[in-house]
């Protein structure tokens, strides 16, 4: 069934988009991430311009993280205080991100920036996760218990706050900074940032695993809602029809993914996720290096006097 996407301005097959939404939803449910880093590239590969893909995926991630956040809220697995502090940074970061997005687009370098950011971020994070997953598996094989360092330099920073539900006593500075970075990346790259945020919160801030995913989902939800609004207001690039199909596919896929995820050991899960992230990063790198089939692009910029 063909459907014309009003903003992306191309006809697409509804079932293809639904299937993509479901597939990414499955992965995101399995690993407890938003899946934006997979969805945006997939949309770009089927011919939707990177700008529309980034802007529309934001609302799709908002939907899937909202359904996730509700589930975590019921289990009391969200730290409201931590979420609030993260959001302060997140809002600043998202605003900066959307402004950067608009500026890069006017320069004609948006697509390149998106591709370069994907390469840099995904290959790094993917390689780190893969490495960490390998080490964890080795440790399990050898029966060694992971060494647990309780404090690092982050805990020496001032402006300490008490996060009751997570049972941690932590400076607000790194939390806000992390919020800014995630918000910025989310707006520019069309990712929720969960796959970066969760490891940072665990390893750097030492947030307990019980509250980490739920809290990161709240940040993702709010920054992505905010990004949707800003993209809609400044660039008019949010394709609501595309977003709705993705959401429906995504939330359904996520449920099955979550069940599948429970059957796999966590270090294997991390290894798989690392590989997946790495693969997407490499795909982007290859795209940048090989000579494109078409060197020219046209963009209508309206009538300027």
């Amino acid at each position, binding site marked *: 069934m*063909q459907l*014309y996407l*009003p*903003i992306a301005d*191309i*006809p697409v097959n509804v079932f293809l988009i639904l299937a993509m939404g479901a597939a990414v939803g499955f992965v995101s449910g399995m690993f407890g991430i938003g899946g934006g880093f997979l969805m945006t590239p997939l949309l770009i590969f089927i011919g939707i311009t990177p700008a529309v893909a980034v802007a529309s995926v934001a*609302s*799709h991630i*908002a*939907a*899937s*993280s*909202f*359904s*996730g*956040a*509700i*589930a975590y809220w019921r289990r009391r697995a969200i730290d409201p205080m931590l979420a609030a502090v993260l959001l302060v940074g997140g809002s600043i970061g998202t605003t900066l991100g959307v402004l950067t997005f608009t500026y890069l687009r006017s320069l*004609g*370098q948006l*697509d*390149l920036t998106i591709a*370069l950011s994907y390469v840099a971020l995904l290959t790094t994070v993917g390689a780190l996760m893969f490495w960490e997953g390998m080490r964890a598996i080795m440790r399990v094989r050898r029966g060694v218990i992971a060494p647990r360092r309780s404090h690092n330099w982050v805990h020496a920073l001032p402006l300490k706050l008490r996060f009751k539900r997570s049972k941690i006593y932590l400076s607000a500075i790194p939390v806000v900074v992390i919020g800014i970075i995630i918000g910025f990346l989310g707006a520019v790259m069309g990712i929720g940032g969960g796959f970066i945020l969760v490891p940072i919160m665990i390893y750097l801030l030492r947030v307990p695993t019980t509250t980490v995913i739920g809290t990161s989902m709240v940040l993702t939800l709010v920054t*992505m*809602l905010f990004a*949707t*609004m*800003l*993209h*809609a*207001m*400044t660039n*008019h690039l*949010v394709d*609501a*029809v595309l*977003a*709705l199909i993705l*959401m*429906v596919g995504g*939330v*359904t896929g*996520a*449920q099955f993914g979550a069940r599948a995820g429970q059957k796999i050991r966590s270090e294997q899960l991390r290894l798989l996720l690392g590989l997946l992230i790495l693969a997407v990063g490499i795909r982007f790198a290859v795209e*940048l*290096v*090989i*000579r*494109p089939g*078409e*060197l*020219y*692009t*046209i*963009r*209508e*910029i*309206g*009538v*300027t006097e």
Partner: protein
Amino acid sequence: MSARRLIAVGAICTAMFAPAQARAERLIVSVSNHRVTVTPNYSGEELVLFGAVEKDAATPAGPINYDLVVTVSGPRADMMTRRKERRFGIWMNTDYRQFVKVPAYLALFANRPFDDIASTDVQRRQQLGLTNVLLTQRIGPDFADVVPNDPFRRAFVRLQRQRGLYREDTSAVTFITPTLFRTGIPLPAQVPIGTYDVEIKLFSDGALVTHTETAFEIVKVGFEQFVATSARQNGFIYGLVTAAMALMTGWIASLVFAKE
């Protein structure tokens, strides 16, 4: 008017020897539909342009070979064309040109190749063919149309042709009788909305005899168009609605799947 045109196109000799030869062919044309509505499942359509060459007493007797060129130009917009080049080992946009107020849709139809209809000079003056159509570029502070083999111009025309928005067909106009003609105007799915001007030029022996104009309008209707219009005009409300839709979908999903 037509006599002046004759001189203008370089047929000075004819005009000198026959100053009273004010040929008075008239063109009568009509398109099959003056208002095309594009619905969400629109997959392209073809308009038909009909017309007749009407002669009067001043027209020289005997059979005359007429040639017709139909130019359809859609709404105008500025287009940015960018070129990728290899820099630091990666392919990135470097150089660019801005085409100023060029038609978003442009079609040129004729009954035979432009080279057979008129001389190169006339083709250039009358903008016959995609290589001769005026496509103004902004080059720094200046506006100019460049040579037809300018790489940006060629790339622009080629890309627009690939999208079916620019077309040239020198066998599209058919004469049903020596004076009655028709041509199809294909409108692909991604036609921009707006007013389309149709200019019909009648040639005989390589010179312009007369010309006439008509127009049609393309309007998009339905949900998709509503979405596109609101996204552009009411960004704030559109954003709010999209955000609310995301929350609703997430909430419904959590209700549906929570019970299991």
